[in-house]
């Protein structure tokens, strides 16, 4: 790709970007959110057309007007949100739209066998007739990769493939990526996790503000250099470390929280005897692999999901929480893990989004919205949280992920909660915004809020927590002070059921 330019109303998303991928290499595409990565991927996958510039494959200039044309040229993109049909089987998903057969009847046996051949090539033990709905996220991703392989693709683009995976699953994905590379397939790897880039990739390209600002061999660079290129300023460590603090009295206590049965399985253990406490001014990290029950515990405390037994105490008093409304009344807030689906009202303005939970505080006679008070509320948090927006009436859909997350945090701060649970507070936001969100969490703790932080990124948990509780398969497996914690120890507690000393 050379000299790619693409403009949107109000922004120049790509400004003459050059980008090239060699056969059989793993190429990291890096950049903060809004740097132009997604646009570049969309251009490459045929979902959008560039205003300027050319794309060549094997030296031949091509025009990719639709995703289908891109696939024919051997370019397949695996997006963060999978595009699988959950009610169909693995084989049906792999060959969707290209079912083998005579044009009327599908040759099911051929379809199953080809699927099995591909999954074997990936080193997977999956039945081709298993229904995708029953697979976990990592397995679903493998199905996406299998589909890409079945299309005989030569370039697979993976957009944030590791964001929803546990560490063990990430290792497995890396092994598969290396296998693909050995087979001569090129991979474009988009991620926010720079450690992964260092471990896996051969070369890298860094975008900033729609321009290529750095590119080269991974072997000839360092984490610091890449981060500097991404943010355009010096960042000493990956994350700022939390300074030590002296927490106050217990703000929230959970005793023996238990829940059985989920959508798939009536008898599944979702939560089993989960107990922990968090103090005022403390940041309690909850670490665990995906599926460990961290989110489920948070949702149970917040009243978003029911639980079978156990007690929740706020400031020493047992409370009866049956809905998010009652949790909020007891001073508990939750920033959910999936911003778009669970927190944002994309069709509404920044201002409406921000005041959503605290509407009751800015009404006249409890009925009419006091829009002047609302605007000053927005202005207060815009300043305090450094939210970058064109105005309170701007649609929240047009903010970057980091600024959207700050609006969601402001929504809860406006309620002045006693306890704030943040689930994956920095998922899908860029490095600069991550640091800002961390500082906000520190600020909240300093103001006396008890913060519970859930994160799948160990460096993040280690950086922001005063104390860390680990979970596995719905149980609490340990608790450890920040000073004694390190990555290896946490990983052991998360995977091996060892009690912390």
């Amino acid at each position, binding site marked *: 790709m050379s000299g790619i330019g693409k403009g949107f*109303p*109000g922004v120049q998303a790509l400004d003459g970007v050059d980008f090239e991928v060699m056969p059989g290499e793993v190429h990291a595409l890096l950049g903060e959110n809004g740097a132009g990565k997604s646009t570049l991927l969309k251009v490459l996958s045929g979902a959008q057309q560039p205003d300027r510039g050319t794309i060549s494959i094997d030296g031949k200039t091509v025009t990719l007007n639709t995703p289908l044309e891109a696939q024919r040229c051997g370019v397949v993109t695996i997006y963060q949100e999978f595009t699988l049909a959950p009610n169909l089987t693995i084989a049906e998903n792999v060959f969707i739209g290209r079912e083998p057969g005579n044009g009327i009847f599908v040759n099911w046996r051929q379809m199953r066998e080809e699927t099995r051949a591909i999954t074997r090539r990936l080193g997977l033990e999956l039945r081709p007739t298993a229904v995708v709905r029953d697979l976990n996220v990592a397995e679903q991703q493998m199905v996406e990769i299998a589909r890409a392989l079945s299309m005989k693709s030569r370039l697979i683009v993976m957009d944030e493939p590791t964001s929803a995976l546990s560490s063990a699953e990430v290792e497995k994905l890396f092994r598969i990526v290396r296998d693909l590379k050995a087979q001569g397939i090129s991979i474009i790897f988009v991620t926010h996790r720079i450690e992964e880039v260092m471990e896996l990739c051969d070369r890298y390209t860094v975008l900033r503000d729609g321009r290529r600002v750095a590119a080269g061999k991974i072997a000839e660079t360092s984490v610091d250099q890449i981060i500097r290129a991404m943010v355009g300023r010096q960042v000493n460590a990956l994350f700022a470390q939390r300074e030590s603090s002296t927490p106050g009295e217990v703000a929230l206590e959970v005793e023996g929280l238990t829940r059985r049965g989920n959508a798939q399985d009536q008898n599944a253990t979702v939560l089993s005897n989960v107990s922990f406490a968090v103090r005022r001014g403390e940041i309690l990290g909850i670490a665990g692999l995906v599926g460990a029950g961290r989110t489920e515990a948070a949702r149970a405390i*917040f009243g*978003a999901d029911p639980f079978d037994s156990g007690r929740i105490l706020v400031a020493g008093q047992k409370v009866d929480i049956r*809905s*998010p*409304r009652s*949790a*909020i009344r007891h001073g508990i807030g*939750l920033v*959910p893990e999936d911003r778009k*689906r*669970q*927190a*944002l*009202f*994309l*069709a*509404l*303005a920044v*201002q*409406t989004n921000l005041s*959503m*939970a605290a*509407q*009751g505080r800015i*009404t006249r006679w*409890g*009925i*009419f*919205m006091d*829009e002047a008070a609302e605007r000053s509320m927005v202005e207060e948090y815009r300043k305090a949280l450094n939210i970058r927006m*064109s*105005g309170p*009436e*701007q*649609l929240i859909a*047009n903010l970057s992920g980091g600024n959207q997350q700050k609006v969601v945090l402001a*929504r809860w701060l406006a309620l002045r909660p006693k306890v704030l649970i943040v689930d994956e507070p920095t998922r899908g936001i860029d490095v600069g915004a991550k640091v800002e969100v961390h500082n906000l969490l520190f600020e909240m703790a300093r103001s006396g809020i008890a913060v519970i932080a859930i994160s799948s990124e160990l460096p993040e948990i280690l950086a922001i927590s005063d104390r860390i509780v680990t979970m596995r398969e719905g149980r609490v497996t340990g608790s450890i002070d920040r000073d004694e914690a390190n990555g290896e120890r946490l990983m052991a507690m998360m995977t091996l059921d060892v009690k912390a000393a």
Partner: protein
Amino acid sequence: MSEATPAQTTGSGRSDLIGIFARFAPLIFLLVLMAAFAFVEPRFLTPLNLFNVLRQVSIYGLLAIGMTFVILTAGIDLSIGSLVAFCGLVAAAVSKGGLANRFSVGAAQDAASYGWYLAAIAAIAVGIAGGFLQGFSITRLKVPPFVVTLGGMSAFRGAALLFAAGGPISGFEPSFIWWGQGKIGPVPVPVIVFIAFAIVAHLALRYTRYGRQIYAVGGNPEAARLSGLNVRAVTTSVYVIMGFFAGLGSFVLAARLNAAEAVAGTGYELTVIASVVIGGTSLFGGSGTIFGTVIGTILIGVLLNGLVLLDVSAYIQQIIIGIIIVLAVAFDTFAKSRRR
């Protein structure tokens, strides 16, 4: 609610124009249509005819206001035609002095009849009760709105037929009839009722906390719940509001026709849903305005009136309305995809 209108605040040139056009498309279409009819048929633009059009649409308009609330939460109410018939019969019976006297005339009627306000209150109370029953079924029994109100469509019609016991109830006292046939100055009373409630509904959606919550619940029910909103109460309430307008609309309709019958309101749900959708309210919830609904309602009225003046057959009118509904949604979808 300005923040709910889909037009972008930032943008340049072409997409900005499309955004503005999409926002005012119903109004522009209405003006073009009126100009065209005025050109072909001079009688169209006379004040008499225009007030006539408005009077004709005002009952649809009242129902469309309620339907806007429902559709904003991504719901639908197919039962309103039947509910209008049932509520209208209740109003008529009360006006005539109760179920036993409902077919009486002359002196016997004068002796037994109750005031128009009791008739109106009874119709609205029945409408609200019907709406609440449906809202409750949707939120508590977790049956989709389409199914609940399809059931309501059948059940309320049955109730109306049972209640009417065969014949229409007609011949009301003058103060009742005034609400449908009277005028204040040159303006028909139903038009005033329609515009007054449209203003109230607009203020409620645009300026109150409740209005905010309707857009929030329609836009993202899960996020609304996790923000502490009472999603069930809000969802139930829009069907109650719809019921209120069904009751009010039935009262004005009975007054206008000086009669109520069990087959009244047949097919109203389609015209009303069409008005709301043509006015730009998204069937997926979360965006739309009362202003749009008012324009959409008038647009359908003008179209029908103009076609009548041009001697187009009633059957062809139905075909045209059907095509316009599909085109309106297609345009909305197209405009949205261009703005992404």
